[in-house]
């Protein structure tokens, strides 16, 4: 579900469940986290991409709805938080290429990236309150990237935003025309970052992390808040209504 390859100082981690719009499963997220944590000495930057038509449509809700115990949803929320923290804590910069769409958990992944490239047609957002799930798990990372006003609207309003709006609020840093452009530009950027003298890049990333108040601590409260809704009547009802029919 995750494809990892290293070349030219860049480790490229690709979400590889394209036939399911890269819908996240717990084992996919743990593989992703391991890939980020396990980069070699010669990796100078990380590129994150998605195979298939879209970058990521979020959690595999069919699997969540089928699991009465709520364990799948819990594992996904925890795994997501760990992936975002791993990207933030990586010593080298992370460039993320978003094509097609980045929804819910897919959009949350942006919180871990240092540079985000997206195609102009890609909708983004966290429509999870519609299924009784709280996007709090993303709040700390989102609010340490973009201003509080747009972050609030993005998490509380289940509507999606356009890539242009995402660029305007600073969630996306570069817009390109289409999916091919996303892959090309993401790879190009990751290579150019890898080619720079390493100390300056690493220290700069570490410093911005320090200014934005660290990493692991930041996400913990949010994860707890999101976990607290799992298995609630509201969630079971709303999730079931979406997937029961």
């Amino acid at each position: 579900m995750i494809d990892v390859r290293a070349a030219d100082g860049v480790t490229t981690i690709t979400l590889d469940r394209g036939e399911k719009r890269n819908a996240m499963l717990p084992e996919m997220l743990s593989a992703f986290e391991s890939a980020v944590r396990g980069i070699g000495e010669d990796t100078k930057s990380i590129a994150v991409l998605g195979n298939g038509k879209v970058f990521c449509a979020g959690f595999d809700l069919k699997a969540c709805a089928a699991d009465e115990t709520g364990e799948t949803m819990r594992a996904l929320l925890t795994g997501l938080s760990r992936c975002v923290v791993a990207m933030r804590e990586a010593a080298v910069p992370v460039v993320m290429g978003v094509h097609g769409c980045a929804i819910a958990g897919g959009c949350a992944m942006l919180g871990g990236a240092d540079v985000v490239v997206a195609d102009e047609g890609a909708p983004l957002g966290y429509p999870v309150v519609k299924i009784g799930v709280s996007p709090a798990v993303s709040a700390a990372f989102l609010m340490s990237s973009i201003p509080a006003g747009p972050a609030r609207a993005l998490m509380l309003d289940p509507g999606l935003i356009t890539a242009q709006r995402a660029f305007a609020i600073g969630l996306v840093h570069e817009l390109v025309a289409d999916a091919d452009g996303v892959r090309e530009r993401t790879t190009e950027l990751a290579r150019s970052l890898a080619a720079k003298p390493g100390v300056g890049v690493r220290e700069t990333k570490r410093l911005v992390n320090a200014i934005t108040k660290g990493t692991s601590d930041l996400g913990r409260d949010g994860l707890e808040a999101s976990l607290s809704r799992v298995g609630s009547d509201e969630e079971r009802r709303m999730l079931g209504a979406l997937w029961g029919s």
Partner: protein
Amino acid sequence: MNHLATLTINGPVATLTMNRAEARNSMSLDMLEAMHTHVDALKGSECSVLVITGAGKAFCAGMDLKAVLVELSGDATLGGRLLRSLAELTIKIRELGMVTVAKVNGAAVGGGCGLSCVCDVSVSHADAKLGFPEVDLGLCPAVIAPWVVAKMGAGRARAAMLKGGIMSGAEAAAVGLIDHLAEDREGLDTLTDEIVERLASGGAHALATTKGLLNKIDGVVEAGMVLEGAKLSAQVLGTAEAQAALSARMKPAK
């Protein structure tokens, strides 16, 4: 030494001009000291607006690379002193009880771009060149990073400082590095004059009170990150990797 920066006062509006045009107003220790003297003179003045700009074609090309490349300066402590002086100058400018306007007339690079971020309002034109190419030279923009984060927001600052390179004034305006954009250099004077006139129409005390509160909310000065950043920048500057990258950059110029 004071001629390296000039201060003119016209009613409520002061203008501080970096005046090392032949070196694209890059920051030498002497120029920074001249700027310190002028900013000190403004403390407690009646002015309500300070415009900071550069003489000649550039706003400020950043640190004087000749001073920070040890093989040229012959003084390994100079880079650290320069960074410390820049850190103290930016804090001093932030704490002035008047609205500060960066009139980015041309290139604003590295520390020069950081200086524009310290100001409350930045004005430039579409063809200006701005950015943080520190990482391209093996350096770390730590000394100015807190101002860049406060100006652009952390996510954008992260992307801009890690990507390095240079962007146009128009691109800088799109990512919040520049607040007001003129179409070209010719239009910049008129646009800046309009903005400055509007700012100066505000009550000096109301402006100072508002600015003081904004400084308190963003907390950059109190956090001590700028002086810490100067140390980190100096540390990275002293590495063999950074000195080698700087040396390679200076070679074509020799």
